[in-house]
């Protein structure tokens, strides 16, 4: 790899895409496991326990994931700041909506909203899990996951914040999914329209799916 790659505009774009792909695949896995909770509490517990105690996932995948999230976030914000600096004098009259969608122009907004949500989400689920395992040293609680999940979704305000955040996540994915392919250098007459459709489907399924899970547990716990 040439030395300048990660410092170049194109290189960074490719890296944003690769971290995006990684986060997309993680989201899919996260979604599938969560979806289990809707119809089988035991199965959800088994899957969560596996994810929470398997050492490859805990000590290799988890740090990689954290790095991926941080990289995507820091690089995204850094590039946004650089891009703003590339036009110090703004137009007196500008019509950006004539040639590009709101979603594609505001990835930093939807991204930061997802980031804020991640703060709450980590506080809700990740921190207690880490405390259990690494502070209290309790690794073997194979049935705690479902109870914890349902308990968290009792609060309607929290459910509301989660649902709103999933909408932002969906908007981010609507542009991000297909954009990642373009950035990675893949644009094909035949397949790009398909990728765009798949991206839209993915964004809708992931956001509505997560919303459904949150709302489902909220009403089921009452």
């Amino acid at each position, binding site marked *: 790899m040439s030395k300048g790659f990660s410092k170049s505009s194109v*290189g960074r774009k490719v890296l944003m895409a690769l971290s995006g792909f990684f986060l997309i695949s993680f989201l899919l896995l996260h979604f599938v496991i969560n979806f289990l909770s809707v119809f089988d509490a035991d199965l959800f517990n088994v899957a969560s326990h596996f994810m929470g105690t398997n050492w490859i996932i805990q000590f290799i995948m988890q740090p990689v994931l954290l790095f991926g999230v941080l990289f995507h976030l820091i690089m995204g914000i850094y590039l946004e700041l650089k891009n703003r600096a590339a036009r110090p004098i703004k*137009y007196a009259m500008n019509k950006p909506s004539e040639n590009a969608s709101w979603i594609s122009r505001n990835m930093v907004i939807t991204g930061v909203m997802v980031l804020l949500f991640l703060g709450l989400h980590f506080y809700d689920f990740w921190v207690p899990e880490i405390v259990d395992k690494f502070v209290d040293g309790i690794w073997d609680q194979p049935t705690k996951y479902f109870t914890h999940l349902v308990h968290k979704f009792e609060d309607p305000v929290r459910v509301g914040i989660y649902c709103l955040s999933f909408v932002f996540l969906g908007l981010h994915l609507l542009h991000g999914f297909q*954009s990642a392919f373009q950035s990675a250098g893949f644009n094909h007459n035949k397949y790009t329209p398909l990728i765009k459709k798949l991206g839209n489907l993915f964004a809708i399924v992931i956001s509505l799916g997560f919303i459904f899970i949150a709302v489902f547990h909220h009403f089921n716990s009452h």
Partner: protein
Amino acid sequence: MDLTLKVWRQKNKEDKGGIETYPIKGISEHASFLEMLDVLNEQLISEGKEPVAFDHDCREGICGTCSLYINGEAHGPDRKVTTCQLHMRMFKDGETVYIEPWRSKSMPVIKDLIVDRTAFERIQQAGGFISVNTSGNTQDANALPIAKPMADKAMDAATCIGCGACVATCKNSSAMLFVAAKVSQYSYLPQGQIERKERVLNMVEQMDKEGFGNCTNTGACEVECPKGISLEFIARMNKEYLGASIVSE
């Protein structure tokens, strides 16, 4: 038709500049946008004022010199046309029309509506060419067979006239559509293969040095480009760059 023009006036590079308002009357809807500006300049000269400086040359959409940001869009509200090909019938009688220069740190205003586009030239000099011996023993072009689809793609990319509308319209002030077109045009052709890797590496390096922003795939450039250069070429440049980076020392 009668219009109210809001035109960016700026004496020189150092001047702060600002918008001036000029009413203009009796413009034919068949006139081109630049002809309308000619009328405005006649009017300003007869009033003893300094005419508005703007770039133009061929006035038929092939040289890429004209470059105005009209009513919030590069080359105005029409599609796939340069400013010189824009007609006044695209505007309504009585309309207020904003006329501004391209805005980008890498293309600073020199005077009024004229910007310095030498950044594009420096990018071209970094690799937007092929090296051939022109001593008189050059090979006949037809001796090199090129598949029609490849030739077509190369031509599609080569239609870029270097106007800079892509930079002007991009929310990030990114020059990737221009550079992608210039990188891609040779990548399809046998003549472009020898310098293929250095070309993309050097041109991207120069683009970054010039301070253009980073592409986020909004697609605005493709919509506003007078030649309809496709985003497909940006993907191609990314791929070329990735490939060249992996194999280069």
